[in-house]
């Protein structure tokens, strides 16, 4: 499905580049002049105090918001006003801070919905639910079952997700994103509201996804322990500005980052 002329990006190359991005809502500046890049195959963390613009940044990357200034380049292609479903088509999947699942549908249907883009049999066959459309449905069902096994959620396959505990909902949401076989996976606080055990499970899944499938991951997270363990590089935002961009242990020692989190002694 990919355009033949799009460049081959190997591990370590820049997959997504954010250049001088600013985002304003009326008088409020959510992001000012932020630049960083995400390299293929890495786990990139975006951290910062509340209201720093982390989620706004993700929303810009997957097209929910359009930057007021600056540009975002994905796979070597600059897209000024990318719509979310186009971003998804290009290989960007995401999860949400406050889980956004299809609550009335089962776990299985939710993850199948993630395959929407991979299923391309026409409306006509769909209506008949016969021939190619049925074969396609079965084939994708197999992939989805693999994902369910991977995330260890076999027991809740047929449960409407609205009834699941929060931690499980987060896992289903990850499953739906994985079903898209994304090149870039955006995770918005995947561990928020979880207990220690659930956090450990989720960290393991994130690492496994990165290592087994080679998926590039950008995640927002507040739990510094998790961030330091998982990520290869960290971007730190504060009041919509980038204040640091380095490896985890360097970020930990950065004066400005410490000040942003703990305040400066006066």
């Amino acid at each position, binding site marked *: 499905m990919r355009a033949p002329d799009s460049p081959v990006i190997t591990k370590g190359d820049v997959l997504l580049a954010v250049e001088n991005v600013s985002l304003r809502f009326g008088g409020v500046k959510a992001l000012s002049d932020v630049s960083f890049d995400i390299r293929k195959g890495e786990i990139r963390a975006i951290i910062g105090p509340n209201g720093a613009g982390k989620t706004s940044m993700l929303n810009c990357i997957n097209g929910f918001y359009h930057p007021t200034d600056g540009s975002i380049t994905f796979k070597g292609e600059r897209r000024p006003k990318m719509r979310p479903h186009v971003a998804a088509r290009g290989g960007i999947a995401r999860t949400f801070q406050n889980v*956004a*699942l*299809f609550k009335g*549908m089962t776990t299985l249907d939710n993850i*199948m919905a993630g395959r929407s883009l991979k299923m391309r049999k026409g409306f006509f066959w769909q209506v008949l639910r016969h021939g190619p459309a049925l074969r396609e449905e079965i084939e994708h069902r197999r992939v989805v079952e693999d994902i369910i096994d991977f995330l260890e959620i076999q027991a809740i396959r047929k449960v409407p997700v609205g009834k699941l505990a929060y931690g499980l909902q987060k896992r289903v949401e990850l499953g739906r994103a994985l079903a*898209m076989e994304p090149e870039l996976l955006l995770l918005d606080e995947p561990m928020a509201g979880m207990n220690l055990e659930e956090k450990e499970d989720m960290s393991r899944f994130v690492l496994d996804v990165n290592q087994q499938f080679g998926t590039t991951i950008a995640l927002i997270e507040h739990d510094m322990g998790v961030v330091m363990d998982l990520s290869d590089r960290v971007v730190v935002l504060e009041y919509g500005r980038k204040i640091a961009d380095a490896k985890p242990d360097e970020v930990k020692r950065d004066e400005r980052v410490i000040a942003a989190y703990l305040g400066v002694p006066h």
Partner: protein
Amino acid sequence: MASEAAAIRKPGLDPRAMTWLLALLGLAALVAVLTLATRTGVIGRGNLIYDVLVDPFVLMVQSPDLLVQTLWEGLVSGVLYALIALGFVLIFKASGVFNFAQGIMVVFAALTLVGLHEKGVPAFLALILAIGVMFVLAFAVERIVLKPLVNQPDIILFMATFGLTYFLIGLGELIFGGNPKQMISRELYLPQGSTDLQMFGGLVRLQHIDIAAAVIASLMIAALAVFFSKTRIGRALRAVADSHKAALSVGISLDQIWVIVWFTAGIVALVTGIMWGARSDVSFALQIIALKALPVLILGGFTSIPGAIVGGLIIGVGEKVGEFYWGPLLGGGIETWLAYMIALLFLLYRPQGLFGERIIERV
């Protein structure tokens, strides 16, 4: 202590079953008292209690053929109400818009079909063209009405469908004129005439077109149900209904889904228009029947396809039976408002309808 233990063990029936049991017992007692009163001559014809609570049932038992006829007619109009309600439900589910224009879409679709035929287009070509027109309409609505109003409050979108209603009335009159037209049932090979069935010592008359309407509507509803639950697009439709944000993030295009939904609602409107038009005629007065979909939706719940069907049948049967057996007491004509009364009662006691989605909220 002993009595306490007994009290703990005893509760047995849950309050819900208790309510039902009490209601049943009450009903049985009422029937017994009324029977006794009638037998002993305490109440009789002319007495209000007798006329309302006894006489209609006596009539039902005495001439079951009339009852069957009434029920059948009720079912047929019920199926057609269900079809109209289905059009509303489809759009409401996918876009949260209550489409006031659904009624006029029924008229417009039927009018296009008949009007094209009048202008000399062969019947089946006219049918295909009418389907095409419904697609163009769906596309135009998405582009011109929905898209610019995306993220506006629901009431704005609702008002926009009012505008659409008047636009379609104007357009329909402009192109095809405002006179009632005959549905081209014969040219579409819809069955005509009727069959009389010997039943319970009387005749029950079944119009063939009614049978066809019931069959076609059932097939259509079944097909839609499978389409919604088992295909990618169906899943995408449900996904959009649940969460726009999440649907966008997995690459479902809202524009495309809206066109599909409006197109499907257009097809449903066309079928309804053909069937209803074949029973009376095709005129702008038809849109009034679309308002009957409101009580159907209140009964069935705005988001439920089975609800639309069951609600349609209840309203259809309810108003025919009410008209035939109780109508004379009020001087007749209660068919026109009975449905709304039923809906009103439902709003008081079960506002989410019979099948409406209970919102699952984890606290």
